[in-house]
């Protein structure tokens, strides 16, 4: 009897998870289609770019500055053991451009803007604003989701670029100003070590993370449960799911991109 109940529970779990997974892919497909089909509403896109992108710039720059500074301190400490402190510049720049820039920008944006997107859509859902849109023959996927997904896709790589530039500046200030490295060494080693492939790799990663950001935060808000508890749960799930997805996808992307760009 116990075995039957356990099997039933497990079966239900598998069915509901598969269903959720399928629904979320259909949701993504519909949102991507809505992005390219007219009518276009440029004002909505600009509004979301402002809320998701521009309003996150300061916090992203701040995190970038201190991440670069920490990398310079840690890099210099580690490289000193091998007598290679001259490579502090490349260490800071490559770590930021290839890995930490895209990942930390994505995690910060998910925490700051992703939770807000999910909560806003969730509240619209439970206060019947989404139903109101549908009753007025306005597709909520096109009106609400597409601008947010597009804003994530556009803002993430741009914010990542800001993160990288400010981070390198932070690393430079610490390495040259505090740790006594020569400015010429820092810059020349960095520019000779960092190639276009590194920038491309980081850009591709942040674009994919932008997609994950928009997809998860919109989907969780759109499928939010009832009441304040439903919004609370959706927001938590959105941040956790998107953050975990970013870290998992990062591993696979890094593996693939490293091979692709090495060939």
């Amino acid at each position: 009897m116990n075995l039957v109940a356990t099997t039933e529970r497990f079966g239900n779990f598998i069915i509901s998870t598969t269903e959720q997974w399928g629904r979320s892919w259909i949701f993504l497909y519909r949102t991507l289609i809505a992005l390219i089909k007219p009518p276009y509403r440029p004002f909505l896109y600009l509004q979301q770019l402002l809320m998701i992108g521009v309003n996150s710039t300061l916090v992203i720059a701040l995190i970038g500055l201190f991440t670069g500074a920490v990398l310079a301190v840690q890099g210099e400490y580690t490289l000193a053991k091998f007598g290679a402190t001259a490579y502090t510049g490349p260490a800071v720049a490559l770590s930021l451009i290839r890995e930490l820039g895209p990942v930390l920008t994505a995690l910060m944006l998910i925490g700051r803007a992703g939770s807000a997107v999910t909560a806003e859509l969730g509240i619209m859902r439970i206060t019947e604003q989404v139903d109101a849109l549908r009753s007025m023959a306005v597709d909520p996927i096109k009106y609400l989701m597409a601008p947010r997904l597009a804003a994530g896709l556009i803002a993430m790589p741009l914010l990542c670029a800001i993160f990288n530039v400010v981070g390198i500046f932070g690393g430079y200030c610490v390495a040259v100003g505090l740790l006594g490295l020569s400015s010429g060494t820092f810059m020349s080693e960095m520019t000779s070590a960092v190639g276009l492939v590194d920038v491309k790799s980081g850009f591709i990663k942040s674009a994919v993370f932008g997609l994950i950001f928009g997809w998860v935060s919109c989907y969780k808000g759109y499928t939010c449960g009832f009441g304040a508890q439903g919004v609370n749960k959706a927001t938590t799930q959105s941040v956790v799911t998107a953050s975990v997805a970013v870290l998992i996808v990062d591993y696979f992307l890094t593996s693939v991109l490293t091979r692709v760009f090495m060939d």
Partner: protein
Amino acid sequence: MISVHNVHKRFGSQVVLDGVSIEIEPGKTTTVVGPSGVGKSVLLKLIMGIMSPDAGEIYIGGDNITKAKSEASKNEIRKQLGVLFQSAALFDSLTIYDNIAFPLLERSRLSVSKAHKKVLTIAESLSLGPYLSNYPEQVSIGIRKRVGMARALITEPKILLVDEPNTGLDPLDGQEVYDLINACKNQWGFTGLVISHELPEVFQVSERVAMILGGKIIAEGTPAEMIASTDLAVQQFLNGRTDGPIKIQ
């Protein structure tokens, strides 16, 4: 105008609608009444095409919304509808002016200048002029309902659906909403479907009344016929008694 044929809807093991059939006659206002949780709002969402029935068909002005495959074809049918939601469902991020103009700009794709004239006209009819630059959270729920009504009627729909018109309102605001529905009906002449459990107050906007219980329509008629009904469940509900065939959940 609206025909609901043998509609069934269940959520998991819970049967909500079990063969509901109802005809909403053109130009008349029909009210569907019943205790909380019997599926009145679900019926409304099925009519709007926001939910799909498990079985049965719903025709709106001759178009079968249950058979509409895509959201675009449902949208074509929805253009006949105006909806006043329970909480008015105004968009928080838009001013009252923008809320009223929204369906004109998004659904009718009217030019901004034409939309502006229509908004001012309807706002004047519903005494909303002083509130147009406010946001929904800055006005009372009674005003919000009026804005919801303006938004629902600005595209001059053939059918107005109203979900629980006076939920959360004090008696004065509640009466104001009923007066508003009657005044708007006289001015715009729509077919109305009202969902409510407020009895007998809702009879003042109703030409026909149907009572839903146990997933079925158990009684139907004019308000006078309902009041005179010998059905025990109808009498229990009308008189607000706790003893009778309706079990309080």
